[in-house]
């Protein structure tokens, strides 16, 4: 077997804050091959963004971060290379689309210039070359009148247009890996489709691998090969996209899928969110973090952290009942379609 493009092993990330240590990522492992697309879904605040920021060590100046584990990219551990080396990789071999498009763009620099700057830094292109390429890219991500609008500042772009600018910057240097954190949340359905198809095209044409973080199961379904489901800083389930919809194993995954909105009928009356609250990340979690909200939880679930149970070549579930549940769920069915 060839080595994967990116391999994350037992990543743990914590922040020291005034009110204690926050474990934002706790024992995460996954890998991505060249040209492959991995989706990361899960609870808000479960560590999706922090894990991806860890790959590029992009933390705030005042964050007191502790990182452990390994992040192997093309065989090198990114956690152990120098800042200078990493800065060549950032925006070069690894591109990133950030979750908050406004705050990640420089408010006082024209958008075209921001794209061009990255091109110049990583490829050594001349100013006019970089500008020309920047306009092509802006056009490609669907900014109307790109040649004119590239001289405008980010604040005069709408939310969705800024998001497209972020995509242009991220793909400017034809990265090997593109990390997209909610790349299409502020986009209408048609532009969303265009961006997703663009990412898909880049993946096929240039063999770019993709990590797609999103809350939208429609996006997941349309773009990724495999999915990682996170809850309270921990991985819950890892499976292929087909398995996700046909035989989700973890009760948390199932709970999420049941809430995926469907357009064919009006979601009547009151919605039924998963009951209870996620655990505080400042406290030690001994058992399964989902146990307090899980209808199936047994005593061991509250006391011992479940192992990631391997259910197949591309299916793992961190649940004490995984094997049992897998046996019952082998007949394809769509859990979220059964009326609740």
């Amino acid at each position, binding site marked *: 077997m060839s080595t994967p493009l990116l391999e994350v092993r037992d990543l743990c990330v914590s922040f020291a*804050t005034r009110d204690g240590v926050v474990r934002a990522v706790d024992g995460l492992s996954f890998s991505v091959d060249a040209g492959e697309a991995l989706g990361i879904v899960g609870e*808000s605040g479960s560590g999706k*963004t922090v894990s991806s920021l860890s790959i590029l060590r992009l933390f705030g100046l005042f964050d007191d971060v502790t990182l452990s584990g390994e992040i192997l990219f093309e065989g090198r551990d990114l956690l152990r290379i120098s800042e200078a080396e990493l800065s060549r990789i950032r925006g070069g071999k690894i591109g990133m689309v950030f979750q908050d498009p406004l705050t990640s763009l420089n408010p006082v620099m024209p958008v075209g210039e921001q794209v061009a700057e990255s091109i110049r830094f990583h490829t050594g292109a001349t100013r006019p070359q970089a500008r020309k390429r920047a306009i092509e890219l802006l056009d490609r991500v669907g900014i109307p*009148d790109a040649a*004119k609008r590239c001289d405008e500042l980010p604040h005069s772009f709408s939310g969705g247009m800024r998001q497209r600018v972020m995509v242009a910057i991220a793909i400017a240097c034809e990265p090997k890996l593109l990390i997209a954190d909610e790349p299409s949340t502020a986009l209408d359905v048609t532009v969303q489709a265009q961006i997703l*198809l663009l990412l898909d095209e880049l993946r096929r044409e240039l063999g770019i691998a993709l990590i797609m973080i999103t809350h939208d199961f429609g996006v997941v*379904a349309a773009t990724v090969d495999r999915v990682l489901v996170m809850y309270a800083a921990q991985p819950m389930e890892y499976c292929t996209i*087909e398995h996700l919809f046909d035989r989700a194993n973890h009760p948390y995954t199932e709970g999420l*899928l049941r809430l995926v909105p469907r*357009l064919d009928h009006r979601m009547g009356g009151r919605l039924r969110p998963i009951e209870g609250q996620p655990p505080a990340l400042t406290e030690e979690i001994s058992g399964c973090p989902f146990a307090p909200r899980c209808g199936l939880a047994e005593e061991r679930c509250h006391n011992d952290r479940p192992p990631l149970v391997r259910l197949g070549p591309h299916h793992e579930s961190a649940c004490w009942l995984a094997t049992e549940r897998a046996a019952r769920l082998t007949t394809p069915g769509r859990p979220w379609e059964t009326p609740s």
Partner: protein
Amino acid sequence: MVLEVDDLVVRFESADGRPITAVDHVSLRIGRRETLGLVGETGCGKSTLARAALKLIPFDEGQVKLLGRDLGDLGGEELRSVRRHCPMIFQDPRGSLDPRMTVGRIIDEPLKVHRLGDAAQRAAQVREMMDLVGLPEELHGRRPVQLSGGQQQRVGIARALITRPSLVICDEPVSALDVSIRAQILNLLADLRDTLDVSFLFIAHDLAVVRHLSDRVAVMYLGRIVEEGPVERIFSEPRHPYTQGLVAAILRADNQARERLQLVDRLAAGDLPSLLNPPAGCRYNSRCPYAVDDPCRLIPPDTELVGDAGGDAAGHRVACHLHGQITPPSSEVTLSESWEKG
């Protein structure tokens, strides 16, 4: 009426000094306890319309009446006191939160500014509101940068709801939330509507969410409202070709989503129009599959009522020259048929 917008026009200037008409003669109304969903393409002017409706940005023409007060001649203290009843949840949660303040203080701020209650009462209200939007207690002392995207978004929601407002303008309020928290927030908004008669202007790209919450839906395209009507009419019998495309274009969470993406892309074919240089005549003509030279490329369509005046279709209006003549098979049907075949 809680909000009345008449013939509103908002213009910006582009970098090279040319006018951009981001909101072009838009009229809408929102009644007490009513939710109006506002949908439309990226960059079509939804956020601009929302900001202008609160006079957070100046408008160039038209009239806005908020809670019965004409904002045109309102300023200073008076304007602030009207706005207190009409907070906004901003599209960019992080950018709209003061980075130096803690979560607790941000949510408390509106209460403090408007002198609602003493410190102890306010602290209790803040804690209750944090719980309602699903923000764990442990986040109380954190700063915005120490939160996840969805947590920031919920701080924005809590801040807007804490003063028990009359109208809340929500710009993509749930886009960064997982489906479970999203359901919790949507329930909360519905509760506020039912118990406190709150009205909402609800901007979102997620049509399932819009459908769930809205009484009526307005569809915007390049600065104009092209269709508006009762929510079920818009989803089951969209009349404007743009709305039809939009309704058809929903990504569904299933194993056929990839094929669907291709179909959606074909729907959005044609040149991306620009506000700098909007097409003459009907603005949708450059992408409309039905457009004919005369009149679509010559004359801007008027807004007309469709269907019966009363009943389910009350107030369903559309701005399309051909709305009576095109009887496209409901695009939703076309799509699902073609994927069943394929």
